[in-house]
């Protein structure tokens, strides 16, 4: 696992063609220069930021609400918990296909239901303006269970005595959550969010199948661009350079997380 990673960094400094692996030459920083001069790279970068932070923000928000709901005393809790977690275990390809069918411009149930309540058909994935938001929506749907599970696990480790004490002191549910529960589950929320940001930034199965970055690069993200460059364009060197740049961005995220952890350890 370590060797391929080192190898990837090496590849990013070479000119490597998929069809002719023996003709590999070291070209230094040329791949990175080509990347920085490429306007598509910047489009992909902006899309990547929207995709990653947009999707994870809503996943966290709804995952938190969901976890709090699942932690209540409700009937059929085990069954409900199993059912709402289902998307987590579903192949991303299948998720993509299910939504492709739902959002199909002509036959899809989504547009027909909108027509039913008097709203016109939406282009969803086929319009540059709505493609990325639609993809983010699908990824939010896909990712809520993961947050819900992780936060639920953290919620269950909150000692009951503290909640009891807060209640006796007259705190309402809202205050109990902000002052007692949230500080206790914050480390778990933080690591989940960091892991998820990294994972979402790298995840492009959905985009690949649903729009392949289109229309007009409106939903092209950096890892997808790296993939296309390496396998469609057969340019492994440039593809690796894009992937290394992506890894470097993520490393910043990890460093920020580590610093946050260290700060809270000292405090």
């Amino acid at each position: 696992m370590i060797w391929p990673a080192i190898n990837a960094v090496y590849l990013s400094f070479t000119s490597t063609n998929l069809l002719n692996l023996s003709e590999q030459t070291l070209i230094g920083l040329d791949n990175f220069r080509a990347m920085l001069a490429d306007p598509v790279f910047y489009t992909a970068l902006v899309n990547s930021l929207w995709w990653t932070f947009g999707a994870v923000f809503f996943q966290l928000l709804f995952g938190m609400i969901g976890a709090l709901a699942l932690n209540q005393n409700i009937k059929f809790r085990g069954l409900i918990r199993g059912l709402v977690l289902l998307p987590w275990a579903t192949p991303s390809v299948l998720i993509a296909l299910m939504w492709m069918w739902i959002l199909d411009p002509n036959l899809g149930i989504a547009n027909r239901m909108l027509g039913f309540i008097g709203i016109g058909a939406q282009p969803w994935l086929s319009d540059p303006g709505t493609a990325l938001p639609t993809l983010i929506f699908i990824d939010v749907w896909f990712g809520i269970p993961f947050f819900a599970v992780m936060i639920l696990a953290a919620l269950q480790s909150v000692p009951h005595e503290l909640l009891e004490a807060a209640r006796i002191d007259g705190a309402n549910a809202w205050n109990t959550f902000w002052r007692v529960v949230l500080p206790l589950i914050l480390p778990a929320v933080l690591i989940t969010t960091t892991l998820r940001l990294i994972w979402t930034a790298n995840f492009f199965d959905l985009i690949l199948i649903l729009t392949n970055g289109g229309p007009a690069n409106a939903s092209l993200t950096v890892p997808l661009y790296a993939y296309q460059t390496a396998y469609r364009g057969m340019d492994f060197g440039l593809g690796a350079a894009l992937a290394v740049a992506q890894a470097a961005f993520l490393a910043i995220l990890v460093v920020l997380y580590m610093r946050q952890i260290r700060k809270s350890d000292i405090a």
Partner: protein
Amino acid sequence: MSAANSRASVSKVPQLSRIRPIYFLIAAWLVGVLGPYVWMFITSITPPSDLSSIILFPSHPTLAAFPSLLTETPFFEYLVNSIEVAVGTVVLTVACALLAGTALSRYRFRGRSVVLAGVLFMQLFPSILLIVPLYVELKTIGLIDNKIGLVLVDTAFALAFSTWLIKGFVDQIPREIEEAAYVDGCSKWQAFRHIILPLARPGITAAATYAFIYSWNEFLFAMTFTFSNSTRTMPVGLSLFVGENLIRWEFLTAGGVLASIPILIGFMYAQKGLVAGLSSGAVKG
């Protein structure tokens, strides 16, 4: 996630006025989550000619799409490939994760913390970064377009989390039990076989489920590293249906239903263990 644990976190005075909106919320959530699956199932039993007119349920439900999917397309072959790769990944992952997890939990050795941190750190690398060199590597050792190659790659990726999962479970087994076994004359291997193995069983189940789901769902590697029908897995097969000019929705949705069944069974079976493993290992770690 023991029963006592979950009971402790439930508020003891559920006022009726506070409970009601919760049920609305849960109901909306269930509809939102299950809706697409139900819609997929309904589509799969709808005759193609009725696809544009179904509102809630087809007027002439039919199961015809399932046999024609299996006979007219190589989907059955894809499913078998997927099962083979998934089973291979599970066996290899659990074997390695069990040994590694036990060693990391029970023995203090040079570089132990480096290994533990390194295993997690590797998770941070984008898979796209590794696809390129892995492709070159698999091609060099002749395992491109080969199911064994896919098993190796899937195992490499599923192993990190599985090792942490099993380590968390072995950590919870009291050392005293093992020490008592040594006093009674057990060898290290016997103690592993008769004490750790049975006691870590929920962890092993959880790790196996995780590895199965990972391999069953894995798309990017399978798509990049396979070219022929005899190695393609189910997710790749499903995605190929999309590339065709006219999408056969009844085939796609029938394939989706077939692909969901193992996940549904496996997930329902091991859901508790997975959540417990997450809360003991990943979250507190």
